[in-house]
């Protein structure tokens, strides 16, 4: 009899210890908008086999992430660098036979990872841009001026003050407005 080969995501990982299992994690997820249906996943593997990112990545596997969450491996899921590889293409959401809304579950994992202090730099930049201008990128003045010569109407000036008012009380936004050094950093791995 041959031994089953380790799956790519578990390759090189530490064996699971009972102490790291959080049996309540799946019930927490059931209460969050987007991951309500996580327990319906019966591990068919459709999401992973149709995921364009899984095809090119050695480690990103949506089915495995969902399985790990069902088992209660909260820390491993939320600290996984590969979480940030999902392209949010929604192929898995449309094809999951159990209607798990896989892409939304991945989004919930990411939101929770951020609450635990893990956020790639690119998102920090976008939050800063939104709070500063209302737009997700810092659009250079030159570009804005060029519009006239291109025959385009002026770009409406954003209203960051009003945007900030509406975002008051959102945990993440309140956190980033705190002085630097209070949030952790995660550097997603290049693979």
């Amino acid at each position, binding site marked *: 009899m041959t031994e089953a080969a380790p799956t790519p995501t578990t390759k090189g990982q530490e064996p699971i210890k009972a102490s790291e299992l959080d049996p309540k994690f799946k019930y927490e997820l059931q209460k969050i*908008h*987007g991951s309500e249906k996580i327990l319906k996943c019966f591990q068919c593997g459709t999401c992973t086999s149709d995921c*364009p*990112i899984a*095809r*090119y*990545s050695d480690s990103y596997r949506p089915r495995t992430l969902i399985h790990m969450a069902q088992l209660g491996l909260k820390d491993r899921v939320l600290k996984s660098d590969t979480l*940030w*590889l*999902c*392209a*949010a*293409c*929604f*192929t898995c*959401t*449309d094809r999951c036979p159990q209607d798990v*809304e896989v*892409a939304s579950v991945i*989004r*919930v994992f*990411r*939101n929770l990872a951020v609450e635990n202090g893990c*956020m*790639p730099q690119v*998102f920090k930049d*976008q*939050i800063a*841009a*939104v709070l500063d201008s*209302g*737009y*997700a*990128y810092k*659009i250079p003045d030159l*570009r804005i001026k060029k*519009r006239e010569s*291109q*025959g*385009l*109407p002026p*770009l*409406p*000036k*954003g*209203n960051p003050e*009003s*945007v900030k*008012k*509406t*975002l*008051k*009380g*959102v945990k*993440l*936004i309140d956190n980033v407005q705190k002085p630097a050094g209070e949030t952790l950093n995660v550097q*997603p*791995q*290049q*693979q």
Partner: protein
Amino acid sequence: MSNPSSNKYLIFLGCAIPYRVSSYEISSRKILAKLGVELVEMPEFNCCGLPLDPVSHETMLILAARNLALAEQQGLNILTLCPGCAGTLKKVNKILKEDKALKEKINTHLKEAGMEFKGTIETKHLLQLLKEDVGYDKIKASVTNPLTNLKVAEHNGCHILRPKEYIGFDDPEDPQTLKALIEATGATCLDYIDETECCGAPSVGVSDKVALQLAKDKLNHIKQVDAQALITICPFCHIMYDTNELRIEKMFNETYGIPILHYPQLLGLAMGIKPEELAFNELRVNPSKIINQVTQGAK
């Protein structure tokens, strides 16, 4: 409920287009003017919310709802050129209309700025507007210079198709709208492998290698069917292919030379609009070969 007029739209540009893809905006405005669609500028808007959904779903909901509330104040439906913006605004509109408690929660945020989401308008992407409001017949009738000898491929991208529950105007597994719109110009739209697959753009910056491999495989499939150009309808897909084609050629030792056109550029050529007016000069992959072919055909 009010029923805003269907040939007058508030144009929602989003962030990516004014930031990097003005060729898409320029060409879209040109063809819409020719088709008699009236565009009203939004007095103000903010990021649709999608870029921040991965880090805070609540932030996304508030940003999207704020835009919807701004449009409601104008009493007009929204037209977007970016599928990401369209998908987000459609989805949030639907969620908030169906979930009263969530709507109330989001409205307490908007109230801080003296605003309210009511759920009285709709959002359409350019593609949906061309299909449903303008119609294929009118588009065909606007073609004065049919692109009969041109063979192209299409790339819909993800957010114009999925999730079907919220977008729902085309079949995500076998989309037909963009194909039909291309055929309306007289050009042939070729089938190829994995047409509905993601361009990879969202993974740029997290893993360039994964993202570029995705784009490379797509370009290979497009090359295999001898497409003369790839037609996109999304600023991110366009950036992904147009900006990276040369880089991918070098990195993987391939040659493509496939220009990446926004659909309105293609339609504009077929309408006889001069190429100079359609911002072809902003494309990185040189489109002059097909422009010459098309304009010579017109003579």
